[in-house]
């Protein structure tokens, strides 16, 4: 079944088309939502709600972007709503942005467990960009389209996220010494 056939099936309310869509995107979508929300149950709720919304709104899908991007946009927006409800601070925290040369000092200090902790502590807005870029393997242009942001904004977020991680890793490393 091609993407167009699948979309037609979804519009016609065909169960087969829905099954195929969920098999195709379910796992990756769940992983993405989990990485953003850091809560398995909430991620499962968001993914199920995403598919229900796809069913309700498929007629509004104009086929200008790919179905994949459209579905992810719904999921990301739902995840953001969940995060807002949990009163996470989604604002950009400029104070956390480190100097440009911190990456250079990371040599031989990258420890996965440490990095994992730092990733968990990272502001959701940066984590979201990292998840879409590194986990989803989306390009800057695709992320920009999905989040409805300029490509420069996405590049800047990714760069800042890496710098924050680098800075935090450096801090962690210094404390150990």
């Amino acid at each position: 079944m091609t993407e167009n056939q699948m979309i037609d099936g979804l519009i016609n309310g065909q169960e087969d088309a829905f099954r195929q869509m969920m098999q195709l995107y379910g796992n990756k979508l769940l992983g993405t939502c989990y990485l953003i929300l850091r809560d398995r149950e909430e991620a499962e709720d968001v993914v199920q709600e995403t598919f229900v919304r796809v069913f309700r709104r498929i007629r509004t899908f104009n086929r200008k972007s790919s179905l994949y991007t459209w579905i992810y946009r719904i999921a990301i927006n739902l995840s953001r709503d969940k995060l807002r409800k949990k009163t996470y601070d989604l604002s950009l925290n400029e104070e956390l942005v480190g100097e440009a040369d911190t990456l250079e000092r990371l040599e031989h200090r990258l420890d996965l467990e440490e990095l994992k902790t730092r990733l968990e502590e990272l502001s959701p807005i940066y984590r979201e960009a990292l998840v879409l870029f590194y986990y989803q393997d989306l390009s800057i242009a695709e992320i920009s389209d999905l989040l409805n942001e300029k490509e420069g904004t996405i590049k800047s977020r990714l760069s800042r996220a890496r710098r924050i991680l680098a800075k935090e890793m450096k801090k962690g490393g210094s404390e150990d010494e």
Partner: protein
Amino acid sequence: MNRDDLLKDDIKIIFDEETSEMEFTDKMMESVLDQTTRSGKGKIRRILNYELQIPLIPAAVAVAAIFAVSILPEGILEKQYRLTAIEMAGSQVMVQEDKEVTRK
């Protein structure tokens, strides 16, 4: 491999590890199907979409035919010949109650 690549690879490894056991299960899929295609709305949508699949031209012709039949005055297509014979001075004149009157 430079430090940027190393950080990138490590982030990827962490994300993959953290989500390795995440699975969109059949149970979740069934739950979504119950709320969508199997729901009352889903069934209605299928019926509506089936009707929309009727070819447009034959459907339009059928609608036009029904419309024409319903607005035309009754009996307009029937020719009415109400002939009346009038005796006038030993001869008969045939009178037809119609706009097109012809002499026989």
